[in-house]
């Protein structure tokens, strides 16, 4: 089995248009959630979200590209550019054929669907733009990354709701570890902050109208965000041979299914994924210093997740830190695990743990060290990133400090 390392990372999200700005926001405990700016917002009962600000597609892409790229694809390509630039990789010949792309998204080109439903149903138009299908398809972002960077190996898109990008990154890890690929570009993207996207979530009645407060006793639901994060997973020997800068090592991954309920989380399902990831990484629970929680800010998730962590880690649950950065960038659904992995690479490389902001009242059912409101300096060698999706599909990654 081959060792797998991360040699590039990139992002765009409500906290910043790149990794440096996102890290700065994590360190400052800055919240990127605010009033939603979108068409027909007055018809929504949920009016806050983690929108990407200060981004103008016109200055980043040309007219033909904008005609073909939904916002979730635009986010993906922006994050991919930063990640691939950092990795220093170029793909030609054999390496191109041994490298691919696996991305996560839940909604795909939802802005495109929303706009065109409006046009045919609301405006009564009988004709839509010819690129509607290539824009909205879930694999569009993945395809454009492969075309832009000449990645000719295995490429596909994973959709497991809120766990999509963790499942995607787990597959990318497997591909490189098994030797099926030398380099995999991976991560996820979501852009669901449009009228139809929010309206659908309103129906479930799990959204907060004021703030995302994970683990706080007065939490009242999740807040949606948007954005993307992309990583370059590379065979360690390949990275070493070319003298690449290594950001972290990916050492474990596990998946589980609750096989129980379409929306309610299961402690057992979550615990099996966490335990499986530790086993895959061949480490003891007490070696884990930080967990980036799924931490959605719903009553059900946060207490279930804390109970699962307590079950797996026993006494060590009181020593480790676990924060939810969704409190800052919002729940980016199919892209959230990728954005949250940035908090993991920051913890390993900079020794700073991103906080859970918006925390106000202790909850006895969430009695772990959730790093409330302020980031903290701490040296950690192993970190976990949890994702527990609607549908009961769980995916947990383990990263190790590269030394």
């Amino acid at each position, binding site marked *: 089995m081959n060792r797998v390392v991360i040699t590039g990372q990139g992002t765009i999200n409500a906290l910043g248009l790149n990794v440096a700005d996102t890290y700065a926001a994590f360190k400052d405990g800055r919240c990127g959630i605010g009033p939603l700016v979108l068409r027909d917002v007055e018809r929504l009962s949920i009016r806050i979200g983690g929108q990407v600000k200060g981004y103008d597609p016109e200055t980043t892409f040309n*007219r*033909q590209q904008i*005609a073909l790229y939904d916002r979730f694809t635009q986010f993906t390509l922006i994050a991919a550019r930063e990640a691939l630039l950092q990795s220093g990789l170029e793909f030609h010949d054999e390496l191109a054929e041994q490298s691919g792309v696996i991305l996560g998204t839940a909604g795909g080109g939802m802005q495109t669907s929303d706009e065109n439903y409006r046009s045919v149903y609301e405006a009564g138009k009988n*004709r839509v*733009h*010819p*690129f509607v299908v290539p824009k909205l398809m879930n694999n569009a972002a993945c395809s454009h990354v492969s075309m832009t960077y000449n990645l000719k190996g295995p490429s596909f898109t994973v959709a497991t709701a809120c766990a999509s990008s963790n499942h995607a990154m787990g597959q990318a890890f497997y591909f490189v570890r098994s030797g099926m690929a030398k380099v995999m570009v991976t991560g996820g993207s979501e852009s669901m902050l449009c009228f139809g996207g929010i309206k659908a979530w309103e129906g479930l009645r799990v959204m907060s109208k004021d703030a995302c407060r994970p683990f706080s006793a007065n939490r009242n639901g999740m807040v949606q965000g948007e954005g993307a994060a992309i990583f370059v997973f590379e065979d360690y020997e390949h990275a070493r041979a070319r003298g690449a800068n290594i950001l972290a090592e990916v050492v474990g991954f596990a998946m589980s299914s609750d096989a129980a309920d379409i929306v309610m989380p299961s402690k057992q399902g979550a615990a099996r994924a966490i335990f499986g990831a530790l086993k895959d990484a061949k480490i003891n629970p007490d070696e884990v210093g930080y967990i980036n929680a799924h931490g959605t800010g719903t009553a059900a998730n946060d207490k279930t997740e804390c109970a699962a962590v307590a079950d797996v880690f026993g006494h060590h649950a009181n020593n480790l830190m676990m924060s939810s950065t969704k409190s800052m960038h919002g729940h980016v659904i199919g892209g959230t695990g990728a954005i949250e992995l940035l908090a993991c690479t920051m913890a390993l490389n900079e020794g700073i743990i991103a906080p859970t902001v918006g925390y106000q009242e202790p909850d006895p059912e969430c009695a772990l060290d959730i790093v409330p409101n302020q980031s903290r300096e701490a040296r950690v060698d192993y970190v976990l990133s949890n994702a527990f999706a609607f549908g009961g599909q769980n995916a947990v990654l383990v990263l190790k400090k590269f030394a």
Partner: protein
Amino acid sequence: MTELTRKVISIIAEQAVLEVSDVKTTDTLEGLGIDSLGLVESIFAIEETFDISVPYNANNPAENDIDLTSVQAVINAVRALVEQQHR
């Protein structure tokens, strides 16, 4: 130059990312760098602009009854369709 010709050339020029003055009626769409997806996008713009329906199936362009190979052919086709459909 008629209004119709001017509008068609402007649609084709925008698709080819050229100045209107650089598009001649004798040019072929292929020669202007408009590929199959670009042609479908141009047809959409033409349908929107002239409120007509262009009978074009992208599966096998050679089998379509309509000739859209050159700028002049597109102008002729649009003129015929406008006359036919706006009667």
